[in-house]
Structure formats: structure tokens, C-alpha cells
């Protein structure tokens, strides 16, 4: 049933929409090389790169659209790309 005035009462429920399926290239983050500059974290349009409990950055492939801004902005080439094999 459509809500009154189509109001959406569930904040941020777009997480249902897994945009990871859009990807052509998959960024791979090498934590060994990572210097924690946070470039990939802050520039990701999806917020798909987050810090885990160990302080390592992880890419959430459910949402990563494969734009590769992270790879382009990584100063130490810790992020590389591979072709998604769908």
C-alpha cells in the first residue's frame, strides 16, 4: 500500500538497492599498501568504503558502482582494478 502523500518513513532505506551490480571494474584495496590517508573513504560517492574495527578500510561491493575514483585518488596505488566477470 502506498503511504499517505507517498511519505517514506524508513530513513536511508535505499540500502535495499544493491548498486554493486552496476560494476564493470572491481576496485581491490591492498591494506598492506594503504597509508590511511582517507582519500578513498571521503571521495566515494556511495560511502561504500568504510573503516573496519581494525582500522582497515574495506570496500562494500554491495554498493560500489565501480567508478574507481578511489583508485584514481589513492596516492600510494593501494587500489587496483579487475574486470568483473558476470
Amino acid at each position, binding site marked *: 500500500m*502506498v503511504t499517505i502523500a*507517498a511519505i517514506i518513513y524508513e530513513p536511508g532505506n535505499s540500502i535495499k538497492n544493491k548498486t554493486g551490480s552496476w560494476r564493470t571494474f572491481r576496485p581491490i584495496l591492498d591494506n598492506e599498501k594503504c597509508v590511511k590517508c582517507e582519500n578513498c573513504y571521503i571521495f566515494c560517492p556511495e560511502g561504500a568504503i568504510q573503516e573496519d574495527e581494525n582500522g582497515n578500510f574495506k570496500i562494500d561491493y554491495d554498493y560500489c558502482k565501480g567508478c574507481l575514483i578511489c583508485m584514481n585518488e589513492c596516492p600510494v596505488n593501494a587500489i587496483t582494478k579487475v574486470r568483473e566477470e558476470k
Partner: protein
Amino acid sequence: MCEVKVITGTSAAAEAAKLADVDVIAAYPITPQTTCVEKLAEFVANGELDAEYIKVESEHSAMSACIGAAATGARTFTATASQGLALMHEMLFIASGMRLPIVMMVANRALSAPINIWNDHQDSISERDSGWIQIYVEDNQETLDSIIQAYKIAENEDVLLPVMVCLDGFILTHTVEPVTIPKAERVREFLGVYEPKHAYLDPDRPVTQGPVGVPDCYMETRKQVEEAMERAKKVIKEVNEEFAERFKRKYGNGLVEAYNLDKADTVLVAMGSVCGTIKYVIDELKKEGKEVGLLRIRTYRPFPKEDVRELLKDAENIAVLDKNISFGFNKGALGIEMASILKNKKVCNYIVGLGGRDIKIDDIKTIINHVEKAEDDTTLWIGLKE
């Protein structure tokens, strides 16, 4: 005790907004509405009304600001006329689609071109399909009472639609009449405080209002507005009754007002202040032994189809007066609609009073004579110069 003030229609509207203790007013001046928003500015400036008054730069922004305020849970009021209402057009649909109980006074005035500041109904009739409840009042007392009622109707959870209270420019907006002003506490008791459950912007409850209505949901939202309109008929009647109990004034059944219908074969159907003139003529004719009736459409949207059918079931000559014209159809909106629901009856349509053309006693008599003699549905423009 109540106080009686001798005031204009626009002042009555301002008094009503004050009594409703509105939180936010957003308004832009336009003749003949201005004296309403001036009065409200005065109330706010004097501390008689505790409200935020946004002096917007256009009517489009007036309605936009009202929508923003109503969507935040505030009781809001604005007023406009004619070109201003036309400029709001886009936002009117958004207000109703977002189900925000905004109340607006419309000082009915003709639309340009040529520019004309005087009364007719073309402005609000052109917003017929905007999802707003439309109430057309006959006098200044009804203006005040209807605006108070409008909040009660609009904020009802079965309704949640905006309401425009339409009063005739100059004829009501600038005419002083004795108006009984109810006590503020009693109006507060009647209305309560606006506490929306569906739509209010609050960081503690982050909702998204006004999203993209994809084809999968849009049509349902339209149906919901239509259903709310249907429910509004009942609510309007109930509010009219409750208002009558508390304040001893009522307006027909809230949707329509029947005047001398019982014995009359000839019935005039009209909206707004001209109904007063028609009543006068009816009383005069009665003295001569002639019975003519009036069916005043008070609530034009939602349209009181059932009441109209019932009340006009015995009428033979039905004369519908319109202060608007649907170009290319040579009828007014009310004329078209009455004909559509009274299929086997003679329904003649009279285009009257456009751009402030005076509607005289003789004009009403001409209409009565014409409809009684007419053989078929016809349209006549009344009061045109040779």
C-alpha cells in the same frame, strides 16, 4: 460575550486566522486581498498574534513557504487573489499531493488580460482540480466562520487536504458588515492544536516528504486524494453542525444551502455573494405570490453531487449562474457540472458578473424569466453591453 465588529471581509478573514492561532503566515500583497495580510501584519506587530510572518517575494514562494511550514507541523495561513493564485498553480497541486492542511483566503478576482482587479470566480475555478477543498462564502460573517471551520476540516485525519475559502473581491473584501467575533478560547477549544501524525519534519523522526512518485505509486496517491475528498463531505457536514452547536451559526448542511426550494419549480444555482442578491429577489417575488428557489453551492470541491440530486429532484427549471467561463464550451464550470449530474432536466447556464460587472435585481429576474421559458439547455451571457 462575543464581540460584534463592523469590518470588511478581509478583516474578518484576518480575525479568523488570528482566532485559529496560526503559527506561520506567508503572504504577498495583491488587490483585493491586501487588507487581510496588512491586518495580520498588524496583529503580529502588536503581539496580538504569536506567529512568524514571512514577507515572501511572490505568491509562488508564499505557497512554497506555507508548504514548508505545514510540512514541519505548523498551522499556516496565506491569502491571495487572481494572478497570485494563478502563480501559485503549481504549488497548489503540491500542497494537496503532500496532504498538508494549509488554509488560504482567496479574494476572488478576474484574471488578465485585460487586467481587471474586480470580482469574478475565474481564478479559483481555474484551480478546481488542484485537490483543494473550495468553500465559497456569501458574506463576511461566513468568511470568518468558514476559515475557522476550514482548519477543523483540513486537519481532520480523514481529510488532510488544504482548503481555500473564497470570498468575492470588493463585494465582500471591501464591504463592511457587522461580524460577530467569537472568543479566542472558544475557538481554541473547537479547533485544538495541530498535531500531525503523517507529515512533519523533525530530526527525531527523519522522514522523506515529496519523493519521486514513480508510475508504480503515483496513481494510488491520486486515488487517495480523491478518497479524502469524498470523506471530506461528511467531515464538512459534521464540522458545520458542531460549529452551529458551539457558535449558533450554520451554513446549510455545510455543502449546500437550500433557500425556498420546497414550493419552487424554478431554482437558481449559484455560489458566493450573488446568492444574497438572489435571496432578496426571491423574497420580493414571494410577496407577489411567485415561488423561486435557490440552491447555494457552498462547497464546490468536494462537489455535493448527492445533495444536489436530492434537492433538485422536483425542480423543473434550473438556472445555473457562473462567474467564470470555460472558453470553447460557452458554459461556466458549475453549469457544465450541474448538467452532467442532472441528466434529464433542463439546466440553463448564465454567465454573469465577469470582471466586476454588476449583477442587478433585474438581471436575476431576467434569468428567472428566461429559464422558465427556455425549451432546452441554453447559455446566456447576462449584463453584456450592446
